[in-house]
């Protein structure tokens, strides 16, 4: 009896200590995440009647109706962003897996290469990135200027050069967004035991066979993780046309309620897509069982 009582008090003490430890963080997350989420939901169903004091009036679904029935810009931009993301994500994954496999091999200057491919991550997706990618109204596009010399474009003629340009543009953006993915793939590759490769080699497997039969199945969980990570990062990127549109609506045109409604539509759709992708890919990932 006595022992049990003591145990309980220790547990309770632990609980109180934990609460003290968590306290500052909890305040922060309540003030700047949980409360804002509720306000944002409420806002999307309301209309602001008075800016002073921020008084809202419930209007039901009218903001949402406006998005789909009247706004001529939302749906096309939305579809384009979705298409872009679904196209860019696989390219990004293939590219980063390739790089990860290459820099996982023993060679000179491995550390250097690993660092260099990670540097774009540091520039983030802020204004600097925007400047570099030449999306600023006044800068000549660096991605376009560099990759193709003018003469080559002239040779290709007017039909092909825009295609080549846009492909190259996309590739550069994808390259710049693959830093984290490369590191995650590297981690996955290093988790594969070398004895598997040795055994396969003894049995006479070629490099090509080893890639498809050993490497790919064993890193499939990392592929899933990377797929989701890449999609989320494309969706939430502030250079993304739709995010840009929403932000303009909110802060330039002061359409707070409408902006909130659009953010929720966007969030729910992108979240659903992520979930669908997870559901599809999870069935195909190879589970190591005891390794995980």
């Amino acid at each position, binding site marked *: 009896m006595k022992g049990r009582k003591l145990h309980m008090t220790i547990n309770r003490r632990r609980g109180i200590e934990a609460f003290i430890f968590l306290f500052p963080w909890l305040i922060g997350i309540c003030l700047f995440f949980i409360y*804002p989420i509720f306000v944002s939901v409420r806002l999307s169903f309301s209309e602001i009647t008075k800016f002073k004091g921020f008084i809202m009036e419930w209007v039901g679904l009218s903001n949402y109706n406006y998005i789909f029935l009247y706004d001529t810009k939302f749906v096309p931009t939305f579809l384009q962003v979705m298409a872009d993301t679904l196209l860019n994500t696989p390219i990004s994954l293939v590219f980063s897996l390739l790089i990860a496999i290459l820099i996982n091999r023993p060679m000179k200057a491995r550390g250097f290469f690993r660092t260099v491919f990670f540097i774009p991550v540091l520039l983030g997706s802020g204004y600097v990135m925007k400047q570099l990618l030449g999306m600023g109204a006044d800068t000549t596009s660096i991605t376009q200027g560099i990759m193709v010399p003018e003469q080559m474009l002239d040779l290709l003629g007017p039909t092909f050069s825009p295609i080549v340009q846009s492909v190259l543009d996309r590739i550069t953006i994808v390259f710049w967004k693959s830093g984290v993915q490369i590191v995650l793939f590297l981690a996955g590759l290093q988790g594969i035991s070398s004895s598997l490769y040795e055994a396969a080699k003894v049995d006479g497997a070629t490099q090509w066979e080893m890639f498809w039969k050993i490497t790919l199945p064993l890193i499939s969980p990392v592929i899933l993780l990377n797929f989701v990570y890449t999609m989320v990062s494309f969706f939430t990127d502030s250079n993304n046309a739709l995010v840009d549109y929403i932000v303009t609506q909110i802060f330039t045109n002061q359409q707070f309620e409408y902006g909130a409604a659009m953010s929720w539509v966007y969030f729910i759709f992108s979240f659903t897509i992520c979930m669908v992708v997870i559901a599809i890919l999870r069935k195909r990932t190879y589970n190591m069982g005891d390794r995980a």
Partner: protein
Amino acid sequence: MKAIILRRKKIKFGQILLILLLGALVCFTGLPLVAMVCRALMSTEELYIYPPRIICHNPTMQNFSDLLTSLNASVVPFTRYVFNSIFTTVVTVVLSILVCSLGAYGLTKHKPAGADAIFAVVLAALMFSTHVTQIPNYLVVNKLGLVNSYLALIIPKIAVAYNFFLVKQFCEQLPDSILEAARIDGCSELGIFWKIAMPLLKPAWSTLAVFSFVNNWNDYFSPLIFIRSDALKTLPLALQTLAGGAGVVARAGTVGAATLITTLPAIIVFAIFRGKVMETMTYSGIKS
């Protein structure tokens, strides 16, 4: 014998090919960076040469001195923006690391009631993009009376879900026996956190330092919303003002120099913590 030599040669040849291939790819990712440095060093005439140049032929430091002098003449000197950026970013990063580590440590090692619910909130927060909550955030900051102050740039960014998540992954690997031993030796709970847990979590929080620094440093959105007076603007926002507005063509070089200055600190911070970051990314990737 001959076969062995041949084989070795083949491997070497493969190595060279590999390095060449990677080198080409490095150029691909690295060129925009090189271009950025060069733009900062080009004179205005060179910037507008046709066809456009990537590598600058006669570098000048004119842009940097322009940046310092011409902007000094305006109301707010450029150095003030640099100070604003450094001050708010460093304070945010330090506080965020402390608060998030404290919380994550408390959650994993003391296991309070409702720990699962808290972790579910963290996971949900990871999926949300910040623009959903931007307006209500402004309302909160406004209500607290922080608009147009340094605190508006610092306080909302302390309790970040991602930081919490990362530290938590690492806290789980801390062996309980060490903490228990310290407790038996009479160490206070805060003492255990500060003297034992924090040093062991160094890889985690040094990674956090880099990511948090980069994110806060590059963030131009929250100063855009929260800051009204020029004297409190941070570098990215100042850069935006510089790049827009009248006389842009004449200032292209200055913008280039400002872009370079804005980019450098993130790279320096990364260079300091490089080894640790790579290590942490490797671990947390597998665990999540």
